[in-house]
């Protein structure tokens, strides 16, 4: 399988602060790749280097088989973290403009614009001015701008942030549609559940360095089955001062507990303290892994 993106030893500094440190990464063609990491960890800088918006201080960036990432620009769709739309333009003019900058002819663009506006559940709005749109509508228009030229690689920086569940679902369907059309999709997100459900592979960056890279299963395997999900009569209070409890994630009715030793020994000790209604040995969730890595 070829790689849509290949980063080798990429480093980027801003005024002496290391934003990305010796990063190597390979994104297989046709995959959906999730970028996760705390705020300020280097996600957006990495995406901007892939987009050739920023140049690395060291290392190589190869996009769609070309080391001159500028040459691949026309085949790459990009949705930035902060949306950039001309308030005074109509949607039609804006989408035509962005599409033409990707090298598409207006005649081909018009059909694509109509198609994507329908998929985004925004039919009949093409002649509306951008400033009259709601936040969700604007975000969907920004997504259409990224895909209207039918890119081979789609880079989305926090695409689902701020969307209500209905609009988020519309956008997720659109991302999956792009994958069905053969595009590689890379998106950054803080929503671990979305990353778990949608991504073939997940990459986590922390303080500029790669800390996770692989499928969800392989990542979870690295952390073993040290997590138990319990429901007890005593709730979280029953876990107080238990020697083999390393961390508790309390959901009220349910607790996720990371245990230090054998889960069966922990179950025996817990049963001695309180009535146990539910006990499940499980692998840590992506959310749990994220917190383990990023928690100070």
């Amino acid at each position: 399988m070829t790689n849509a993106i290949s980063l080798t030893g990429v480093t980027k500094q801003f005024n002496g602060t290391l934003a990305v440190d010796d990063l190597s990464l390979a994104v297989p063609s046709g995959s959906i790749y999730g970028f996760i990491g705390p705020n300020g960890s280097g996600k957006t800088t990495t995406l901007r280097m892939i987009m050739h918006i920023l140049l690395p201080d060291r290392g190589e960036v190869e996009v769609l088989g070309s080391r001159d990432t500028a040459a691949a620009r026309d085949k790459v769709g990009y949705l930035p973290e902060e949306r950039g739309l001309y308030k005074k333009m109509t949607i039609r003019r804006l989408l035509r403009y962005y599409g033409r900058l990707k090298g598409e002819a207006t005649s081909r663009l018009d059909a694509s614009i109509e198609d994507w506006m329908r998929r985004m559940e925004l039919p009949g709005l093409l002649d509306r001015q951008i400033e009259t749109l709601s936040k969700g509508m604007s975000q969907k228009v920004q997504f259409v701008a990224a895909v209207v030229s039918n890119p081979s690689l789609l880079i989305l920086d926090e695409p689902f942030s701020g969307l209500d569940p209905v609009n988020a679902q519309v956008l997720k369907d659109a991302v999956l549609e792009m994958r069905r059309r053969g595009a590689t999709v890379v998106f950054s997100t803080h929503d671990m559940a979305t990353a778990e459900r949608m991504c073939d592979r997940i990459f986590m960056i922390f303080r500029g360095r790669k800390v996770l890279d692989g499928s969800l299963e392989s990542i979870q395997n690295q952390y073993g089955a040290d997590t138990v999900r319990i429901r007890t009569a005593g709730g979280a209070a029953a876990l107080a001062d238990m020697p083999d409890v390393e961390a508790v994630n309390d959901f009220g009715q349910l607790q996720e507990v990371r245990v230090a030793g054998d889960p069966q020994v922990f179950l025996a000790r817990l049963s001695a303290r309180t009535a146990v209604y539910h006990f499940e040995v499980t692998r840590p969730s992506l959310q749990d892994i994220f917190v383990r890595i990023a928690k100070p």
Partner: protein
Amino acid sequence: MPKTLIVAQSEFTTLVKTKAFLVSLILMPIVMGGSIMLVRATKDATDSKDRTFAVVDYTGVIAEPLKAVAGLYNSSTPSALDGVLPRKGPRFIPVEIRPDGRDANALRLELSNRVRRGELFAFVELPAEILDPAAGASIRYYSDHPSYNALPQWLRAMVNAVVLNERFRQASVDRALVVRLTKQAPIDERGLFEAASDGGVKPAEEVSVARAIGIPLAALVLMYMTIMTSAPQLLNSVIEEKMSRISEVLVGSITPFELMMGKLIGGAAASTLLSVIYIAGGLLVAQYWGGYASAITPAIVGWFLLFLILSLFIFGSLFVAIGAACNDLKDSQNMMTPVMLLVMIPVFTAGSVMRAPDSTLATALSLVPTAAPFLMLLRISLQPGPPMWQIVLSVLLMAGTACAVVWAGGKIFRTGLLMQGKSATFAEMARWVMAK
């Protein structure tokens, strides 16, 4: 279509559809024309209040003739007395106050108080020595309206005319004869003779102030206004794109240099369109009002457009770079001031260039690339115009400067466009330019 031209097309369309463009196109000539007409209409009509003033005549012979002259002036009756002006403003009404041996200072205080009470507008003293040319005596004018100069000017002309009459009378000289004999010959200013197509000699044309000065001045004003309205629009456009993060989307599709060039080309095209419309309107007005359309030659129009485009690339690059380096309009306005001065300083020196367009100073200033669009254009519009080598040199210097400024502006634009937080300083911008 190259991406630069796609950006230029979008920029042009956006600019010509803005209210600012339409206001410039339609309202500005109306406002300017209306202002000129208003100034003309109100220049003499606004002030019609009578000005009553006291005349303290220590000669005993000036006050009466002065009252007679004032009567002629106030009734707009033509006078044989040279120096009597046609009335344009209010009536001037002299009231004679005889000194009758009173203390001069006491009389002055009394008259000053009458002026303060509004009974008089001013008072004037005519000393006895005024009739003696060797005495060097002055007409003394007292008023609490120091900014009002119509009455003192009128008095200087009228009192001197009456005083001269009296001096001639006392010397038993016929003043009318002196006036007739000392009448000066007027100067008839004309251009040069030319060979006519029929082999004869084409007579020299009369020099017209409108043609000689009006057209160069209009070209200068049009250049100034076009640059001052167009270049800051580019800055606003860049800041809007930067603040709303549109820049990041655009540089995902196009290089920052292509983006900047597209903006400059689009801005220059919109400004050129605006200027062409104004020039066409100017031609119509010049032809209608004085048949001066032939004075706006294709060469002047051509040089104007070339200088305009080059200057828009120079000033536009500077404004675009400032826009990219700033994070809000307030910061950009502070940084714009030095660039604005570069535009304004040549206009301040235009007067000296007009008076002596061939002087060393005018030549040197008009070769400075940021001043050339104003001053070289002015010299070209003023007959006979500068030597061709100077025009070509100024164009080459401007083109070279435009390339250098576009290159430097491009480096600032590329770095500044994605920077957030505080605006850059000039020192930081210089470092961006020098960086590899």
